[in-house]
């Protein structure tokens, strides 16, 4: 289906099963490679993200997500954007959940992970909209949906009256960086965490 026929809406109409099958996968995919070293196993990652996505106080709260739908209701992907004013609090509660849910043997490693990656992402101010996650389901890629979703992000910032959009992207995702640049985003600071070996670049765009 052509990208122009995609509508962006909330997750309200989706059942719990659809959320698990059609929303969680792109949230997880959009969290890579950061989340790959965050958890000990894929099962722990999926379990944690599923739990966080149901919690209002999480950066990953699914009700805050904007979902891209085809005209027949099929989900193609979506994005989660958070006003900068609430983001630090949400991250703090997620960090608490991350440590509290750790098996005893993994607590020290998880703490070290948080410590080593604390400076990996952009500083976000109260006047910013932070693009926390954006993704297109694998089965729907290559059709320009990413651009349509990004235009939705820009519209969201405008509707919320937030003058700047900030995002972080792994430097390994070169095509995505080019897409962001084509939409007016500019590269800002690049940050590296030697452990676990991640490099992210922050990008931002003013909203006119």
């Amino acid at each position, binding site marked *: 289906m052509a990208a122009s026929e995609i509508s962006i809406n909330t997750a309200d109409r989706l059942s719990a099963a659809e959320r698990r099958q059609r929303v969680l996968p792109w949230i997880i995919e959009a969290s890579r490679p950061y989340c790959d070293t965050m958890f000990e196993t894929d099962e722990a990652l999926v379990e944690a993200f599923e739990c966080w996505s149901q919690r209002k106080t999480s950066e990953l709260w699914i009700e805050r997500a904007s979902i891209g739908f085809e005209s027949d209701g099929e989900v193609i992907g979506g994005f989660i954007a958070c006003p900068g004013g609430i983001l630090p609090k949400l991250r703090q509660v997620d960090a*608490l959940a991350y440590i509290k849910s750790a098996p005893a043997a993994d607590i020290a490693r998880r703490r070290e992970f948080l410590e080593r990656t604390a400076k990996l992402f952009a500083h976000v101010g109260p006047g910013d909209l932070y693009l926390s996650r954006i993704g297109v389901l694998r089965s729907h890629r290559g059709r320009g949906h990413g651009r349509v979703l990004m235009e939705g992000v820009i519209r969201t910032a405008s509707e919320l009256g937030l003058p700047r959009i900030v995002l972080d992207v792994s430097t390994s995702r070169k095509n995505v960086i080019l897409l962001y640049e084509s939409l007016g985003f500019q590269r800002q600071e690049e940050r590296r965490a030697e452990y676990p070996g991640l490099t992210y670049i922050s990008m931002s765009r003013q909203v006119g």
Partner: protein
Amino acid sequence: MTHDELRSIVFEFVRERRRVDASPQIDDDTPLVSAEAVDSLGFLDLIAHLEQQSGQEVDLLEVDPDELLTIGGLARYFQVS
């Protein structure tokens, strides 16, 4: 645990961790993390410490972030008088 005891526990925690007396700069509504009384990891330890002291576990499904990040909020959360 009373409100004053909770305040004392928080300030004692900050003193031990940061080796500074944070009490003059922090009132009930000062966000503890952004005031740099505790860093992000210190915040996790503070919550664990308060859970231990109060015998009450933080329910992440119910919690309002504002209630964890200030002394006033913590006092409300742990329902101290």
